[in-house]
């Protein structure tokens, strides 16, 4: 099971958190065009590589936070390398 580096609790099992998804800025609701708003709702960069994403520490500190993860290796890059990831590469 993936370990997610919660900035408050420390490393936690992914099952302790809820994956919120790709972090996207919210357009101004009063000026956004339909195209912009729906891009916010539906369009996803979905990269094979670094992805900025939001997690919610549901079983722990109950805080939302964003992290950067490589979606190919599942390594988190920011904040600094979480501990158990150290083993991943030589």
């Amino acid at each position, binding site marked *: *099971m993936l370990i997610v580096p919660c900035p408050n609790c420390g490393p936690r099992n992914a099952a302790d958190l809820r994956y919120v998804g*790709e972090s996207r800025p919210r357009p101004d609701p009063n000026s956004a065009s339909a195209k912009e708003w*729906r891009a916010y709702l539906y369009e996803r960069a979905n990269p*094979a590589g670094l992805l900025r994403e939001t997690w919610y520490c549901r079983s722990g500190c109950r805080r939302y936070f964003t992290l950067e993860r490589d979606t190919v290796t599942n390594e988190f890059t920011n904040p600094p390398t979480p501990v158990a990831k150290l083993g991943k590469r030589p």
Partner: protein
Amino acid sequence: MVREHRYHARPMKRRPPRYSAARLVSRGARKRAWPRAWREVPLQDSYDVVVIGGGVHGLATAYYLAANHGMTNVAVLEKSYLGSGGSGRNTAILRSNYLTPEGVVFYDRSLELYRTMAIDLNMNVMFSRRGHITLAHSDASLRTMHWRAEVNKLQGVDSSVIGPAEIKKLVPALDTSSHPRYPILGALYHPPGGIIRHDAVVWGYARGADALGVEMHQKTEVLDIMVTGGDGPGGKGPGGRVTGVRTNRGDVSVPVVVNCTAGWATLISDMAGVGLPISTRPLQAAVTEPVKVFLPVVVVSGTLHVYVSQTARGELVFGASVDPYNTYDIRGSLDFAEGTAGHLLELMPGISRMRLLRQWAGLCDMTPDYSPVMGFTPVEGFLCDVGWGTYGFKAGPVSGEQMAEAIATQRTPELIAPFSLSRFERDALVGEKGAAAVGH
């Protein structure tokens, strides 16, 4: 603006031997080997159509281009081996008992193509129309089952809701007692559903397309799509026009490129500058060791996120819903094995001594409304048949048929009109949303 393009058919070089019991015997007696099911040929420098992805969708598209529209100057490019993606990793369940009329009609056409596939493709794909039940454990899910059954009936699809006694008769292994946690209150019974040999479907389409002159290129990875005149960087993106593809085996000049990939749909579309509403998630499955056949139908529980069938060899093949976070890593998880086994035991306590033999995962491209993205895109000559979530295999034949029609006629066929990419911008989402989270 529709550009003129002259399509031409490649002359047939050979007629492969047909498969039959008689030929099995005669070849066996004469110790004659069977020829290749599909040829290995050099990659040409131009085609009329390039299909990216050698799975069921891509191969079916190529096959129907040739078979229905006489377009045979077509190449299918596959970065690994044929059927290496979702086509070879799914749990091979077929059904058409969807919730929306557009979904039902679409998948029913697929089921019909599957029904006659063994004869049409001259390859036994072993479609076992054994029936399919979706269990309801709560009032709310029973209501949804009724809803689906009613919509199905109005579209002429055989579905009905059955009660616990009838369920027990169909599947004695199910615990239909007043179970403390997940009582079985009823089920949606869909007799035409069943399972099939998924690899054989891939090989059947490949062999069929090859016989008509289509080329299959394995280990051929698309590195870029050449687009000119578009709004985006490098002339890509909306308003542009496809001119070719770059592969690890050289460049190919081609006016029409079809994205038939799963798991990599975003990455391929990005090459043309077309954004998609897709998040990629792994979907896991597992198989047990074989035991004597005891499970005669496909059993699904949406509440428990599990679906299971037993192959003719006696293995249970089962799966769950997609993994909880986006990733392109498909190594599989223990959580899946634990959770799914636990839920299966809730349904069938008698299988605790069966052994899980192997687990695996494939990638699924999830869209916001659990419906695909099909047809033309803002880049001329770039078409998509993607976003199939967890149900792409079921739709393979009809998707190929319809995409071929779209390419050949330059018009969007009515059957796939609801699935256009532009629906997201118009917020005209398909109503499978919310009903098909685990819709196997």
